[in-house]
């Protein structure tokens, strides 16, 4: 009986960790989808996440209300993304270069502001995080009860946004236009739609969602902002986006997979605590941390052929249409 309980508990923790790790990835990757489907490469997601994470803590610190922090995160991410949009859509600059600039700027700016606002170098003081949600009617179900206990509302928001993204992408005019802008912008232009606007909005949306993803890290999962706290999650989201074939459902599943792999070291720590036979795994924790990255490479190379939007990365030049 005892052992069965523990294994159920372990599975529950495993699933919960996966969900927690996957949430920022999925949110950010969904954001990346809006940008890349519209034909704009966005490697600046990492920077937008970081900005969101920081803005969330700052606004919470100023107002005392984490919900305002959540909104501020989306706004800050969107604002930074609009810079990317101006450079790469309006001025038709190199999208990858611009994205690199975004990352550098966000990394420096957030750390600078740590000093300017709190006078600290590494961590901010703690702020009120978003209240955890306890679903009453689920608590008694064996595994699900553990998974869905004390989750941040952003996780539920992630589910909502995943569904909404599917709807927007495939059922609404905006989605159709977005996809058209990424496949063949000149066709969209001849259909009488302003390509620059569609792309602009796509990029800004991507920043908003990445900002939310960052906010989860700072006021959802933890209670403070730490210098460089995204730790490459923006890039992993980008990989999830490519792995998920630029589609909402694919992105969701790929995000879960990468979340699981990302959470693997934590999960192994828990396992090693409960089962001394597995304690030797702790010696290889760094090697295990490698696995997700290697898997992504193998998956990209071997398992599936991804089909990116045709017009991706190429600024739309109107003159060429004539």
């Amino acid at each position: 009986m005892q052992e069965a309980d523990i294994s159920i508990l372990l599975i529950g923790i495993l699933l919960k960790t996966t969900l927690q790790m996957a949430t920022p990835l999925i949110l950010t990757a969904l954001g990346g989808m809006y940008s890349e489907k519209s034909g704009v490469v966005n490697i600046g997601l990492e920077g937008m996440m970081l900005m969101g994470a920081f803005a969330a803590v700052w606004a919470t610190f100023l107002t005392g209300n984490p919900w305002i922090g959540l909104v501020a995160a989306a706004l800050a991410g969107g604002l930074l993304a609009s810079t990317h949009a101006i450079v790469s859509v309006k001025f038709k600059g190199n999208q990858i270069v611009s994205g690199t600039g975004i990352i550098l700027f966000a990394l420096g700016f957030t750390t600078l502001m740590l000093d300017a606002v709190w006078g600290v170098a590494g961590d901010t003081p703690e702020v009120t995080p978003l209240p955890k949600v306890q679903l009453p009617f689920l608590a008694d179900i064996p595994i699900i009860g553990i998974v869905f206990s004390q989750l941040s509302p952003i996780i539920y928001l992630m589910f909502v946004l995943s569904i909404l993204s599917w709807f927007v992408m495939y059922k609404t005019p905006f989605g159709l236009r977005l996809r058209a802008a990424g496949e063949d912008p000149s066709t969209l232009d001849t259909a009488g739609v302003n390509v620059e606007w569609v792309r602009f909005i796509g990029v800004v949306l991507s920043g908003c969602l990445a900002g939310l993803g960052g906010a989860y890290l700072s006021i959802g999962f933890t209670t403070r902002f730490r210098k460089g706290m995204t730790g490459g999650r923006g890039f992993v989201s980008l990989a999830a986006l490519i792995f998920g074939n630029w589609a909402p459902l694919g992105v969701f599943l790929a995000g879960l997979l990468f979340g699981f792999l990302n959470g693997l070291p934590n999960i192994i720590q828990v396992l090693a605590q409960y089962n001394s036979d597995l304690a030797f795994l702790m010696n290889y924790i760094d090697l295990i941390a490698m696995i997700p990255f290697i898997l992504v490479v193998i998956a990209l190379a071997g398992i599936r052929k991804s089909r990116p939007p045709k017009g991706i990365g190429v600024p739309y030049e109107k003159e060429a249409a004539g």
Partner: protein
Amino acid sequence: MYAVELENISKTFSGGVQANRNITLRIKKGEVHGLLGENGAGKSTLMNVLYGLLQSDDGRIIVNGSEVRFNSPHDAIAQKIGMVHQHFKLIPTLTVAENVVLGMEPKSSKPTKSGLGTIVLLSAFSIILMGLFLPVEQALLGALILLLSVVILYHIFRMTNPSERLGLNRLGRLGFVLEQIGSIIATLSQNLMPIGYGDAIEKIKHIAEENGLDIDPMAKVEDISVGLQQRVEIIKTLYREADILILDEPTSVLTPQEVDELFVTLERFREAGKTIILITHKLREPMALCDRISVLRDGELVGTVEKAGTSPEELAQMMVGRLVVFRVEKTPAAPSDVVLDVKNLEVLDNRNLLTVKGISIQVRSGEILGIAGVQGNGQTELVEAIVGLRKLKSGSVRIAGDDITGASPRKVRAVGVSHIPEDRQKRGLVLGFTVEENLALGQQYLAPYAKGPLTLFLDLESIQNISQETIDNHSIKVLSSKSLASTLSGGNQQKVIVARELGTKPRLLIAAQPTRGLDVGATEFIHKELISMRDAGVAILLVSAELDEIQTLSDRIAVIFDGKIMAIRNPAETTPNELGLLMAGHESNLEEVSA
């Protein structure tokens, strides 16, 4: 009464090319108006200005008597102008219906399942979350507010243009702000309400039936033939209720029979009172269909003539500015040894479909074999397979006895094959390279372009000297041999490619669409070059979609349809009509001439 009046239109591109110079054109309501001119004469530019895709530097556009200002095609569509572009503006991965509604998506008249489902799901989510965070009374209140706002938003969304309805623009400053907000809401509603595909498909089917343009709205565009794709383009304009139809070179991708069908459709449109502008560089078409014909040359309007009062010869002279020799002088061919020997070639295309289905051809030295056919019947794959760019499924390729089946492109070039690719900007040139670098392309690793041990290093000096010589010999107009290839005009770009490919002293020359998009002068130049190469004993495989070109140049004509050679004909003993039938896949009664 004029449907369209273009007054003093001028357009200069940012590169400095003046495409339109002070053009004044008047098009009567209900007529079929031909816009004739060579490639590069400025026809498409002029029509893109009328369609709002480009903005003219100068001049006025008057539609149905009132002056208009087109900032984007959106404005032109609102004035009931529709355009079918030469390169179709369709997105291959979307369905026909999606392509047709793009930019003018209908809102569904009844709630769609996915829309309702999403709203219900999201509302349920929000209510559950509120139930968790708030006390019961507040949660109920919240749910009520949510419900109300959903209903209100839904009704706001249903209004097409709130600012127009409320007459806000008369309210001055406050009205301005409200109007902006209104337009934002309108845009949101236009963009985020589910698309009513049901209604759209109904309408497409209705249009299709009415005009005899049969189409399956649910098919993906990438899966249907080029002719059907053009049909989709026409339906797209009709869906937008266009009264003025611009067709840019509509016949260039069609078989002669399909062209006839298209003309029947256009005839029907004319009877329905629509105005049609037909852009073309072929003389046959305006003479068959148009009421009046305007001729452009070098960006200027040469004149507008009634069909009844003109002749093809006069039009040709207006178009080119001098008397045109329709036939290139050539002596009978003197074929000798077999150079290219292709046997039972089978090739897959990018989607892994069998596209070349067992082709066997031979080309002898000193002859031109023309391959006639509508685009997309396997010509591209055939050529790519011969030059080593595409894997063969089965079959063999020999060049003068050397087996080059499956050899690398470099090996194929090394045995004496030159190739003028069909898309010069994509495949023939590196536009970011200078002209001299482009002239060395393909032989950069051989002396005299390279030097040093194992010819590892470029000999920049000799590259420059050779290029300068080539530029002079072929009178390529370029500022310096160090200018970027992208700064050259289309004709000069093609001359760079031709000069390069002929400079390698090939045994076999494969020329794919060598004169596409070139004016008469450049075309003549390239035709003469090809014939002099033939006379020098080179075997030439000519692939072209232009029947005229094939008939003029070829010593033998092979007709390709659906990846198979239908027949091989002697140009002197065949007619365009017969070739057209063969190109459309009709078996000929005549016995096949052995290859």
